């Protein structure tokens, strides 16, 4: 077996992935071949360098602690998970259960998903879309891109969106993610104003459910849309967010 073949085994040898007979054969060759011994030592140094560089560039411990706090804070507690599940069940009963779509669904429609984890007891039949598809979502929903308000001035850095089925209507649901990750999420529901008023009709039951889970609700009317905000933010902050959303319609 030539040096090139043995040198290709060096990485696996250092990783402990060679079988015993192959490792023994390589070791026998290394004892007699200086070039391959140098290749082995160089690979060992490179691996140590790579390992130490990545580990040395470890993240700021304070940020790790803050991240762990956010993760633990979002861990569902058994009692809260049960309460949310009961809330979903109650809402389904109140709204009559079956969802009906009006017209063909967008191409990203998928199975029903329960999104009670961010305080919105709405069963949706589409998944969240990525940020770059939001404009397409807005145009599909409203015919223009103006249905996605910019709340960056209110400290929100990202938005995800989807279409919800609600009382035989499509309602645009946007989730805003704050810059300060210790702040809660903000959910905004947007419905074109017409005779349906699905959000207005859902609000009393949503208000009861939300109050049980510590959420606040604010509704606003813009020229062509009904807007509905849900968050665990304090009510006065949510009012400011609502004003920010409404100004952009």
């Amino acid at each position, binding site marked *: 077996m030539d040096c090139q073949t043995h040198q*290709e085994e060096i*990485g*696996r040898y250092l*990783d*402990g*992935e060679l079988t015993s007979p192959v490792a023994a054969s390589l070791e026998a060759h290394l004892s007699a071949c200086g070039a391959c011994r*140098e290749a082995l*030592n*160089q*690979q*060992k*140094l*490179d*691996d*140590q*360098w*790579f*390992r*130490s*560089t*990545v*580990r*040395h*560039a*470890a*993240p700021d411990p304070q*940020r*790790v602690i803050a*991240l*762990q706090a*956010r*993760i*633990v804070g*979002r*861990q*569902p507690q058994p009692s809260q998970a049960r309460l949310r599940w009961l809330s979903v069940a109650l809402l389904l009963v109140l709204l009559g259960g079956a969802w009906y779509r009006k017209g063909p669904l967008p191409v990203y429609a998928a199975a029903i998903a329960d999104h009670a*984890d961010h305080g919105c007891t709405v069963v949706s039949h589409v998944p969240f879309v*990525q940020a*770059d598809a939001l404009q397409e979502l807005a145009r599909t929903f409203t015919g223009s891109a103006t249905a996605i308000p910019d709340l960056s001035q209110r400290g929100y850095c990202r938005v995800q969106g989807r279409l919800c089925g609600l009382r035989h209507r499509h309602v645009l649901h946007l989730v805003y993610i704050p810059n300060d*990750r210790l702040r809660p999420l903000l959910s905004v529901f947007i419905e074109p104003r017409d005779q349906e008023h699905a959000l207005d009709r859902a609000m009393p039951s949503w208000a009861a459910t939300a109050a049980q889970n510590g959420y606040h609700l604010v509704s606003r009317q813009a020229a062509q849309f009904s807007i509905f905000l849900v968050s665990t933010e304090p009510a006065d902050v949510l009012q400011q967010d609502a004003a920010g959303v409404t100004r952009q319609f």
Partner: protein
Amino acid sequence: MVAHTQVLLRTALRLTRRQEEAEDAVQETFLRAWKYFRGFERGTNARAWLFRILMNVINRSYAGRPAAHNFISIEDTGLDQVLAGPSAPVLSTAEALEALDRLPIEFKPVMLLVLVEEFSYREAAEILEIPIGTVMSRLHRGRRLLRAELAPRTAPKRRNGEVVPHGE
């Protein structure tokens, strides 16, 4: 599970190269881990399971990213003219991280899992959902590319016969 935060985060940082996106990916990983905990087989490798979730999160979130810089070919680096004798690279922290970031994205997950997190080839294959042969070939090629990247910057740096880790 939260005790794994730091190791997950350092891997996510090297793959996303952005602090906030790495933190988002780790947070999403734990959220999914709690959500799908019933699918975890007790007694199996929890650490590998978490890394598998992390890789899926990153692949889904950043699949559309522009590719990393095109890496120069090994032949163009004059690899055959590397100084005789093994030597450790000497780089500043920024240069070292830039060298890592220039590795093509397809090789980094395997190198991070095997060389840094010390998973076996089989564990890495399961985490990344690729054949074990692909793990071996990507690791082999990634190491060669790293050597080519470091070759112009090597100089002896040892202390008591041992390589001095970067940064010390």
